[in-house]
């Protein structure tokens, strides 16, 4: 379908449906372009602005006590929300984003250390509570994305503070994978959750990379390596998402789906989540026509292969079999797909050639 007009004509919509689509197409044509990378740029700009604005509050000795930090943080967050909801001007929106981020940070710092006995666990808990409260209140995708990623980042930080906490890492990776799959599989997902979906995908990829990298820090915590079974639930999420996008339960009646299941299972058994996650993100990006996610998936795969090469946990020759074997599995799956497509074409031609009784 090369144009909207052709698409509308080919799907056989009723008059009301055609009208609603035509109306939206006209609205979009008149609206300013707002590509995802521009939103990402606004998020980064907001983050930088927040860091640059932070020293300002030292003028009022705000950082001297937890009470003042909490009060100012709360005020800043409220100011940010009000400005964001009222201001149409880009600068105001941008400033509000910086205020909201800074306010959240100050609130977290104040509550996590209110009795002078700060622990990382409490910091994560406070961050989580404030994120849950602020997420629906602040109408900015950039803010929502950044607080969600920040929360995930602090959870990982909490886990690496001790080997006892690191036992939670496999569970965290599984939960993150499942939530990412669930959020992206949900077509009717409210717009407000878009930022969370991106944040989960970003955090999942980042955590997998971190998990590959951690054994580099042998001087620090030697035993902090997740068990290899973690890749199996990720493979399961991949299969469920692929099936869901290509026809639901009915997809399992197709032979290619079984090929995909077999390749995913082998990837799961290999004990490395990186390649499955990259494939999962690529499938999602195509299903949602999301180029930003696709670029991220390719970059993540490149980064994973780079760091995996230097990972000390698996011998290089074993890694070469795992990576090369996965590649061969994908090529074999492509061959199956091509053969099935050829067979379908030949069957169709046969039917056309056979005279009808």
């Amino acid at each position, binding site marked *: 379908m090369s*144009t909207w007009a052709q698409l509308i004509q080919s*799907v056989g919509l009723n008059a009301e449906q055609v009208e609603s689509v035509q109306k939206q197409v006209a609205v979009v044509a008149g609206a300013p372009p707002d590509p995802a990378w521009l939103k990402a740029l606004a998020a980064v700009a907001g983050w930088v602005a927040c860091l640059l604005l932070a020293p300002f509050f030292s003028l009022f000795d705000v950082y001297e006590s937890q009470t003042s930090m909490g009060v100012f943080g709360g005020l800043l967050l409220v100011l940010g929300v009000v400005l964001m909801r009222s201001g149409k001007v880009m600068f105001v*929106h*941008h400033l509000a984003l910086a205020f909201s981020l800074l306010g959240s940070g100050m609130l977290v710092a104040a509550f996590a250390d209110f009795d002078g006995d700060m622990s990382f666990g409490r910091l994560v808990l406070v961050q989580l509570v404030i994120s849950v409260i602020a997420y629906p209140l602040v109408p900015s995708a950039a803010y929502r994305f950044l607080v969600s990623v920040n929360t995930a980042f602090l959870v990982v930080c909490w886990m690496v503070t001790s080997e006892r906490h690191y036992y939670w890492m496999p569970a965290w990776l599984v939960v993150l994978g499942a939530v990412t799959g669930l959020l992206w599989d949900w077509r009717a997902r409210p717009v407000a959750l878009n930022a969370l979906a991106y944040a989960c995908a970003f955090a999942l990829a980042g955590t997998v990379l971190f998990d590959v990298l951690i054994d580099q820090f042998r001087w620090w915590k030697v035993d902090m390596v997740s068990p290899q079974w973690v890749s199996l639930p990720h493979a399961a999420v991949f299969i469920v998402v692929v099936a869901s996008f290509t026809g639901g339960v009915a997809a399992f009646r197709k032979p290619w789906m079984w090929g995909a299941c077999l390749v995913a299972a082998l990837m799961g058994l290999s004990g490395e989540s990186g390649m499955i996650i990259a494939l999962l993100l690529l499938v999602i990006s195509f299903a949602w026509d999301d180029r930003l996610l696709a670029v991220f998936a390719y970059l993540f795969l490149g980064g994973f292969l780079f760091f995996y090469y230097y990972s000390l946990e698996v011998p290089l020759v074993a890694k070469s079999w795992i990576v090369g074997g996965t590649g061969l599995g994908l090529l074999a799956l492509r061959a199956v797909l091509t053969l099935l497509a050829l067979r379908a074409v030949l069957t169709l031609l046969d039917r056309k050639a056979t005279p009808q009784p």
Partner: protein
Amino acid sequence: MPTSPLDRPPSLGLIQEWYQRGLITADTHRALLAQLRSVPVWRQWASWNLLGLGTTLVLAGVIFFFAYNWQGMTRLERLAVAQVGLFGAAIMSRIVGSRTLPGHMLMVAACVMIGVVLAVFGQAYQTGADTYGLFTGWAALMLVWVVAQCYAPLWILWLSVLTTGIWLYIIDVSPWPEQEQFWTALRGTALLHLLALVVRERLLKRGADWLSGTWLRMWLLLAVLGNVTVPAVVWAYEWELDHGKGPAVALWALTCGVGFYVYRYHLHSLGALGLILCSACAVLLSLLAKVFFTNDADLGTGTAYGLVATGVLGAMVAWLQALGQQMNKEQQGGQP
């Protein structure tokens, strides 16, 4: 040039957004989605991606394997296996059709295998040669195939290999003083990619469709700006053009100035303008830091700088949105 919005290509992303916002019904959404993501569309996407990813992973596996330097194989066996891979991939590319996607992928594999063969040769016969020789030799040996293949990702691979060679030459053996090496390497990389970008835009205008991917423009422009923005940012803060930073800064100014004009008025690329403005913004912030913090660096100055920087960043995003809107209108048939 399309005049009606309905003559534009449909976007699944927009349909998805309308559905999420409740602007179209679930039935309409399902019908449109079934058309845009039908089984043949999925099959074609899967075919391309499985081939691309599969080839990439197999090649990565081969590189890992030869890097392991397995002692179970003699050096002759290692060389023989690598060369069979190299020539096998090249011959298979001709057999399946060098202009088809599998043919392209096989040629990429053959070009990567040239590097593997050279590396295995280096492992087997330690000649004490400089490392840059491996990469420049690799780039030189694959050049004929790269030119003949007319495949953009292969050009990117060639540029990456050559860039690595240039960096290794400058850092390891070049006659330049140590302080100049880093800036010279940045300048060289930027110049190489700028040349590639100019060639890409000229050839595309003459009908070289294989260069039409927008990603290629963004990749090359990012490589140019990434390499010249660093010296420009340092220059803006230090206000000194020592250690060979001068030409790099001049190249930065030229790229930003000419690039803005070309991508705003001729080639209409909002993404390219975004990259250029980000680079300019980084240099401007560095310059402002110099102005603000030259005499005193107290908290008041820091605050003022923070507010100004917030304004600059906000203005950049707002300007990009306005530019996008303007270019959108122009492309709909309004003012050029």
